[in-house]
């Protein structure tokens, strides 16, 4: 096969100047997450490339969001695998948010391989702007 010479000495390939060494790859989470707070909502994003919506379960308990998903890496029929750098398997993550959330208004969407869960803060927790009024000029 074409790649046999490469397979015999794979390190030569990785040492080539065209291959960028990635220190994150060694300790990469199975589904790296980002959590942001825009004042109104907490937004939890998870990298889950290739996982269909049907394979994702979301639950909210109190202030904790739990995400379970299954990532299947299927080798298409008739192919030989030379290198497998992508990770499959079960994903299970929990996030405890720093404030109460309104679970009924939570929304989730999967786009471009990223699961984005938007969790509005509970009404009482929302930051309220307080208007400052000019004092009446004293007589």
């Amino acid at each position: 096969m074409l790649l046999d010479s490469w397979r015999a000495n794979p390190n030569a390939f990785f040492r080539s100047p065209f291959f960028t060494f990635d220190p994150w790859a060694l300790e990469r989470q199975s589904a790296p997450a980002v959590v942001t707070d825009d004042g109104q909502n907490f937004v939890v994003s998870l990298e889950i490339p290739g996982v269909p919506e049907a394979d994702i379960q979301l639950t909210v308990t109190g202030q904790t969001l739990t995400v379970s998903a299954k990532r299947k890496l299927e080798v298409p029929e008739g192919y030989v695998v030379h290198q497998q750098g992508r990770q499959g398997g079960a994903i299970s993550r929990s996030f405890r948010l720093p404030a109460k959330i309104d679970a009924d208004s939570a929304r989730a969407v999967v786009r471009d391989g990223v699961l984005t869960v938007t969790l509005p803060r509970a009404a009482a927790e929302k930051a309220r702007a307080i208007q400052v009024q000019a004092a009446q000029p004293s007589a």
Partner: protein
Amino acid sequence: MDVQVQHGRGRADARATRARPAVTPPVDILENEAEILLLADVPGATAAELNLTVEHGVLSLQAKTPALTGEVLLRESADADYQLAFRLPRGVDSDHIAAALKDGVLSVKLPKRETARSRRIPVSA
């Protein structure tokens, strides 16, 4: 969605305009009789913000990731774009490379030239 593969010049151009740091996405390399198949996880990347170029026998990928808004409470992935370079083995027909991006997975098909395909040689008695 299909991704256009550019030839020549593009890589140098892209490198010159890149401002953010970049990480190498995890990659699977598969092969069958007709082609080599490269699968790369590039979650968050869109076809519009992804560049694939072939130059000097090297396939290069550059893809932008969206910037975050709001206060960041947790960040496990690097705040970086994607970058990958793959030296094409001899025998790949670089004029007919096809690429597609779906759900954050980029698949690149590198067809083999007719002469590079393995053939069964009949042995006569």
